[in-house]
C-alpha cells in the first residue's frame, strides 16, 4: 500500500505536476497576450536612455528593495541566486552538463550551502510576515507558498546535508537519482532499487511530493512574477509598447 503511494508521488504525480505547470503557465500567458492591449504609455519618468538595461537592473537587482528594506533585499538576492544554482544542481542530477563544469564541482553542487541559503531566506520571508504591517497585508496564499517551499527545501536539503555532514554519507548515490530522473525524461519511468530500497525512500518521496504541489500551484499564484517581472519593469521604463503623443 505505502509503496503504491510512494510510486504515485514519484511517477504519475510528477507527470501530472509537469503537465499542470506547463499548461497553466502557457494558459496564463496566453490569457494576457490575447487580452486587449494597453495602448498608451504607463511609464514613470525620468525617461532612461536604455529602458531595457534599466528594466533588467530593476528585475534582477531590485534597487528599490535595497533602499527601502535592505535586509529583505539581502535575503531576496540570496534566495533567487540560490534558486538558480538549485535549478542547475537538479539539471546535473539528470545528466552531466559540460557547460556547468566550467567551474569544476561535484554533483550536487554547493556543498550544502544552497539549501542553507534557501532555508534561511525562506525563514526570513516567513517570520517577517509575522510582523506589523507585513502581517496585515499577507494573505493565506503567502504562508501556504512559503510553507510548501520550506518543506520542499528542507526535505531536499536533508539528503544533501546528510551527504556532507553524516560520517557515513547518504545511502542514495547520485547515480540513483540520475537513473530515476533519466527514466522520467525518457518516458520509461522507474524508481531504481537504490532509491526504493533505501530506508530514506520516504524522504525522497516527500521531497518530490512537495515539489509537485508547488509546481502545480505556481501558475495560479503570485509566483507568476517569475514571468511577469521583466515585462512589467519594461512597461514602467517605457521600453514596452505604450504610445505617447508624438513629440
Amino acid at each position, binding site marked *: 500500500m505505502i509503496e503504491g503511494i510512494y510510486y504515485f508521488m514519484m511517477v504519475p504525480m510528477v507527470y501530472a505536476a509537469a503537465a499542470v505547470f506547463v499548461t497553466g503557465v502557457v494558459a496564463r500567458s496566453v490569457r494576457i497576450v490575447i487580452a486587449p*492591449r494597453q495602448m498608451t504609455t504607463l511609464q514613470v519618468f525620468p525617461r532612461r536612455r536604455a529602458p531595457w538595461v534599466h528594466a533588467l537592473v530593476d528585475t534582477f537587482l531590485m534597487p528599490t528593495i535595497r533602499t527601502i528594506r535592505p535586509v529583505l533585499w539581502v535575503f531576496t538576492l540570496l534566495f533567487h541566486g540560490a534558486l538558480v544554482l538549485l535549478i542547475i544542481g537538479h539539471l546535473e542530477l539528470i545528466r552531466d552538463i559540460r557547460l556547468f563544469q566550467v567551474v569544476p564541482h561535484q554533483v550536487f553542487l554547493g556543498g550544502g550551502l544552497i539549501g542553507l541559503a534557501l532555508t534561511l531566506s525562506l525563514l526570513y520571508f516567513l517570520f517577517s510576515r509575522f510582523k506589523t504591517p507585513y502581517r496585515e497585508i499577507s494573505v493565506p496564499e503567502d504562508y501556504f507558498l512559503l510553507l510548501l517551499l520550506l518543506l520542499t527545501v528542507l526535505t531536499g536539503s536533508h539528503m544533501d546535508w546528510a551527504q556532507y555532514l553524516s560520517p557515513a554519507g547518504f545511502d542514495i548515490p547520485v547515480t540513483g537519482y540520475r537513473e530515476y530522473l533519466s527514466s522520467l525524461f525518457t518516458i520509461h519511468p522507474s524508481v531504481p532499487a537504490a532509491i526504493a530500497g533505501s530506508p530514506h525512500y520516504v524522504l525522497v518521496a516527500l521531497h518530490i511530493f512537495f515539489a509537485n504541489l508547488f509546481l502545480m500551484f505556481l501558475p495560479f499564484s503570485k509566483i507568476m512574477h517569475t514571468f511577469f517581472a521583466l515585462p512589467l519593469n519594461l512597461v514602467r521604463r517605457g521600453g514596452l509598447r505604450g504610445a505617447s503623443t508624438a513629440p
Partner: protein
Amino acid sequence: MEQALHHELIERFDAKLNDAMRMYLDTCARCGVCIQSCHVYASMPELKYTAVYRAEIIRRLFKRHFKAQGRFWPTLGDSAELTDDMVDTVYEAAYSCTGCRRCMVHCPFGIDTQMIMSIAKLLLITAGREPKVLTMLADMSIQKGKSTPETRANFAKAVDQLRDEVLGRWRQAHGDKVVPLDVQDADILYVALAGKHSMVPAAAIMNAAGEKWSLSYYEAVNFGAFVGNPEKTKLIAQRIIDEAVRLRVKEVSICECGTAYRVMRHMMGKLPFKVTSFIEVVARYLEQGRIKLEQGRIKGRVTYHDPCQLGRNGGVLEEPRFILSRLTSNFVDLTPNRAENWCCGGGGGLVAIGEKDFRMRSARVKADQIKAVSPDIVCTACENCHTQLSDLIGHYKINASVRFLTDMVAESLQA
C-alpha cells in the same frame, strides 16, 4: 446588491482587464516595499492608506470573479464577493489615493496602483457611488464644449478685457492682438484654465517671445480623468484635439495643470501635432534667447514642488529647474524631489471634492518637507497642487507664499 447591477459591475470590471492590468493584478508579492511610499500612510500610518492594501481590495474582487483560485479556494487569496459593503471599501481606497504613482517608482515590479484604482473608480461610477461633484464638473465641461460655437463671441469679449493686464506684464507693439483667438496655422495653441491667472502670464510670455499663438476656446482641466470615466476623459480632450486640427496648429501647449497635460501628452495616443507643457515652452524660449529674465526680481528663498502628473508621470522634471536657475540665485530643492517627490495630497480629484480635513491630515509629510527648507516662496506648475499647497501652508502655519512658475516668469520678463 441587485443582480442586474452586480452583473453590470462585473462586466465593467472585465472591460478594464487589458494585458498590463492583468499582470498588475497577478503579480504583487505583498513584499510591502510600497508601504512607506504613500504620503497618506506616511502622514497617517494606517494600513488602509497603503498602496498594497488599496490594490489588494481590487485584487480580491479580481480573484473571486475572474480566477479559478477565487472560485474553488476563495480563502486562500482572501477573495471577496462584490457586495454593497465592498463598494464602500472600494470608495475609501479610490478616494484616499491621489494617483501620484510614487508607489510605482518603488514597487520592484512597477505595479501601477493608479491604474488599478481606475477599476475602483469605474465600479463606483457604475454603482452611482462616485463623488457626484466630479461627475457634475465633467458633465459641465462637456456641455460647455457643446455650446461653445454660440458663446465664442462672449468668450472673445471676456478675453479682450484681459488686454490691460497682459500689457502690464509685457508692453508690445500697438495693434498686435494681445490675446489672439482662432489663429489659423498658429505655431502654438495654448490651452488655459478658466481663470485669468492661467491666461495673463502665458499671454505676456508668448507675446514677449514673438510667438504666433492662439488661445484655445476650451479649458484644459479634465474632470473626466479625476472621476475615472474614460469616455468623458476622451470627450473633454477631444474638443481640444478637434480645435487644434481645425486650426492646423503645430503644437498644443497645456497650461499649468498636471492632469490635463498628462491626459493630452500620454493618454490620447498619436496626435497630428506636438503636445507640450507650457513649462517646456518657457524653457525653450529661454534656451533660444527669445525671452530674457531679470534674475533677482523675485525676492526670497524659492523652492519647487514637482507636480506628480507633470514630473514623475509626465516627464517634465528638469525644465522647471532650468527656468528657476534663470529666475533666482536663491533656489533650494525639496528633499526628496523629482520622481521621488512627495505628492501634495490634492490629486485624484480630492481638491475638487473638498475633503479639506483629510487633505490636510494626509499631507503632513508634505508640509514637513516644505518646512525643512524654510522657503519664502513655494512655486509649482499645477493648479491642483497650487490650491492644495496654499491650504497646507495656511493649515500648518508655514510662513511662505505659493506661486505659479509662469507667473514668476511673467513678472521677471526683461526687454
